[in-house]
């Protein structure tokens, strides 16, 4: 163990400031990262600092437009839309993050297996093609409907829907990397297949996947909104950005604020994650190509 700690120090210490400096100089990264952090903090801290209940109804205060008392107005049950949007962030961001992790892990594993074990390439990729032939949202809709509405079934459905694209990306990168001399060189030095995969192939496929996942994060939030909107996602009274909009739809002409604010939240989150994705794309490539 001690040597791992020692090595990590040696490797990381001179690198971190350089990477950090580059990150901070990248405007898209700074903006994207700030918004994401802001939303995350809001989602995490709200229940800790406030006792406001997102499901508390005040029947006499229905359909109040935005004001100093209710920043985002109130909905058809007199619930505070601002509080619901904050609580909705918890669900939406969790779904986005969980989908990223699940589909990221699965696509990394499947993609590398397809690239490395050529006999499995055909079967895996044909299965992915089959999944890809459905529109992602339709596939997710079917799976979510089959599993029954809950947060975990939304995550499962969306993960499955987004795995094929990730697998393709990792496989493509893996096919390039496996032909590199350093992989041959590792084979020559007697490394096992598992070691070659974990140490040489996966780390070099990581940057395209990471960029892809930031987009998946944004897509997953939007798709969760769509699924909730269609009624197979997260069910009321739990607030997610998607089902706040779905519930507000009936009153769109009288109470526009119910739909507007969660809509803005979704756009903002998607925008910031896309900025992050672009920034990762910029920042990871030149480092690998060499030079500052």
């Amino acid at each position, binding site marked *: 163990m*001690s*040597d*791992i700690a*020692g*090595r990590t120090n*040696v*490797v990381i210490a*001179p690198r971190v400031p350089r990477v950090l400096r580059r990150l901070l100089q990248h405007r898209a990264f700074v903006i994207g990262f700030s918004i994401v952090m802001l939303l995350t903090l809001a989602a995490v801290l709200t229940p800790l600092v406030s006792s406001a209940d997102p499901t508390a109804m005040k029947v006499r205060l229905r359909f109040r437009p935005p004001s100093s008392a209710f920043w985002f107005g109130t909905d058809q049950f007199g619930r505070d839309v601002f509080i619901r949007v904050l609580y909705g962030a918890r669900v939406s961001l969790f779904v986005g993050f969980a989908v990223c992790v699940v589909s990221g892990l699965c696509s990394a594993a499947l993609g590398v297996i397809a690239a490395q074990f*050529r*006999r499995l390439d055909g079967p895996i990729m044909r299965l992915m093609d089959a999944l890809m032939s459905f529109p992602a949202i339709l596939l997710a809709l079917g799976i979510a409907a089959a599993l029954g509405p809950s947060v975990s079934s939304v995550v499962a459905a969306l993960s499955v829907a987004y795995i094929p694209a990730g697998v393709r990306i990792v496989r493509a990168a893996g096919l390039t990397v496996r032909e*590199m*001399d*350093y992989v*041959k*060189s*590792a*084979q*020559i*030095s*007697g*490394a*096992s297949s598992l070691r070659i995969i974990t*140490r*040489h192939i996966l*780390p*070099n496929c*990581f940057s395209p996947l990471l960029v892809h996942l930031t987009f998946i994060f944004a897509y997953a939030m939007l798709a969760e909104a769509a699924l909730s909107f269609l009624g197979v996602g997260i069910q009321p009274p739990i607030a997610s950005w998607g089902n706040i909009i779905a519930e507000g739809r009936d009153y769109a002409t009288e109470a526009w604020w119910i739909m507007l604010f969660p809509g803005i939240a979704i756009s903002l989150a998607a925008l910031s994650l896309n900025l992050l994705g672009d920034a990762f794309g910029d920042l990871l490539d030149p*480092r*690998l*190509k*060499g*030079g500052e």
Partner: protein
Amino acid sequence: MNQPLLSIRNLTVEFHTDSGWIQAIDDVSLDVGEGECVGIVGESGSGKSVTALSILRLHDPVTTRLPSGAIDYRGTDLLRARGSALRKIRGREIAMIFQDPMSSLNPVLTIADQISETLRRHQGLDGATARKRVVELLSLVRIPDASRRADDYPHRLSGGMRQRVMIAMAIACRPRLLIADEPTTALDVTVQAQVLDLLRELRRELGMSVILITHDLGVIAEFAERVAVMYAGRVVEQAPVGALFRQPVHPYTRGLIDAVPGLDSEARRLTMIPGRIPGPQEMIPGCRFGPRCAWVQEDCRKAPPPMQPVSDRQSARCPPRVAALDVCDA
């Protein structure tokens, strides 16, 4: 010569392509003695690298087949060795360096990480000892400021430096045989000379055998003791390096040597070999050099010519020329 360290016997390698199985090398036999440096020279596509990669069995098993041949390394047939036995030989007994220093180091790992990987695997060193050894190795391959350089990522090094790192990796476990696949091709001429000097010194210090693959006759003349000339997948001539340059037997070898510009004579147009090397999918029934050869005879076009001894250490795959020499000698 006593028992050779490595002995390739009648090796044929075929690859699967869209147009069926094609022969990459045909009936290659080659011995490497203990401590000896054997050069393999030939054009692109002549099968030099395929031969080298076969020794370590690095071809994709799905698309490769070996209809005949054996590679004996100190009593083990490498072509039939099982996975774990093979992994013990790879890296510890036989190591290899590649042509392109840009792609032969993993960009996401530091140099120390990459070199110490082999040390930990084969010699079971712990982190601190391995690191000390890495710095020693880097100094051994003349990398200045080795202890600081060890923590650099490959993109911070120049091509020549990377090639040195590759060499350090290859010799980390003191292999008995080093296969160098065009180790200097991608480098500047001055750096080439430095890398060759380094290889020569290391060879002497460690007593390694070396198989040097190159298309550069100058490198061969300077470095190798014995040479195998390959053409279109076959070894056409084998000789000690002196004999090869003094008395090339095979017309192809002669053509190669004539095509080297000289420094002594006044400027002349370089002699060319007419035509081009046939692709592996082109089936030429007899001698594959036949269509380009000035000495070609009817028999040459019928069947592949056999390897015939010229002297006790030189042999060539060209019956007409070998016969002509015999007449001269007699």
